[in-house]
């Protein structure tokens, strides 16, 4: 089953989707409008790039410290949590054990993000992964 459909089958998952590293392409299911899903995709892409940059800095101080490549991030709100793993995101309610379940599924389905995350994400668009990404 596709990861987004699998996530949406879990009670308490508000919305889930996939975003592209480059460009405006995204897809989603759940309780978001098209415009809000587009905004969510942009936020997720920006945060993913930001934490990848931070991890590169950490590793320059401690090689093989276990932070790279970054798999994702979580923002825990008072009632809603946003999870991003690879180029998938989900908005979930703060229910007991839901965050752990969603993170387990997202990590299992996306798998460990291989080195060179950006090239990996761009490759999904069929782009030239040798092209400079910055």
């Amino acid at each position, binding site marked *: 089953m596709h990861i987004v459909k699998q996530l949406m089958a879990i009670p308490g998952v508000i919305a889930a989707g996939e975003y592209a590293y480059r460009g405006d392409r995204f897809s989603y299911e759940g309780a978001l409008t098209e415009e*809000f899903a587009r*905004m969510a995709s942009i*936020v997720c892409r920006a*945060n993913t790039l*930001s*934490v990848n940059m*931070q*991890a590169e*800095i*950490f590793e320059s*101080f*401690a090689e*093989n*410290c*276990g*932070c*790279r*490549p*970054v*798999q*994702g*991030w*979580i*923002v*825990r*709100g*008072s*009632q*809603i949590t946003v999870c991003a*793993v690879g180029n998938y995101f989900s908005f979930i309610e*703060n229910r*007991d*054990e839901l*965050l*752990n379940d969603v*993170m387990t599924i997202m*990590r299992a389905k996306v798998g*460990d*993000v291989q080195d060179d995350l950006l090239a990996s994400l761009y490759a999904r668009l069929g782009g030239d992964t040798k092209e400079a990404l910055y």
Partner: protein
Amino acid sequence: MMELPGALAAFTYNDRGALQSHVLREGTELTPQVLDLLARSCVANLAIASMEASGWEALTGQGGFQPLKGISVVGLEWSVVANGNRGVVVKNRDADYEAAFNAVQTA
């Protein structure tokens, strides 16, 4: 915080992100220098997340984000979970994110 499943390090930092205190699990690859950088990134990420949450709520009318209860960055082998002035690093394999977020809530 070091009693959390898979905890590798726990630390506190000031509002500018400077490391104030820390505990490292013996044998971990993490160093005080990395923890200091982590603490600074936690302050930055919390500020960015707060800005995004505030903007999202204002634009969409969807509540439920503020006040934030923390952020986590999930690395290859470990995750850092932070809120306020405290953070904890847990092994991904053993991570209980909900317990970690609960542990970093300020009293």
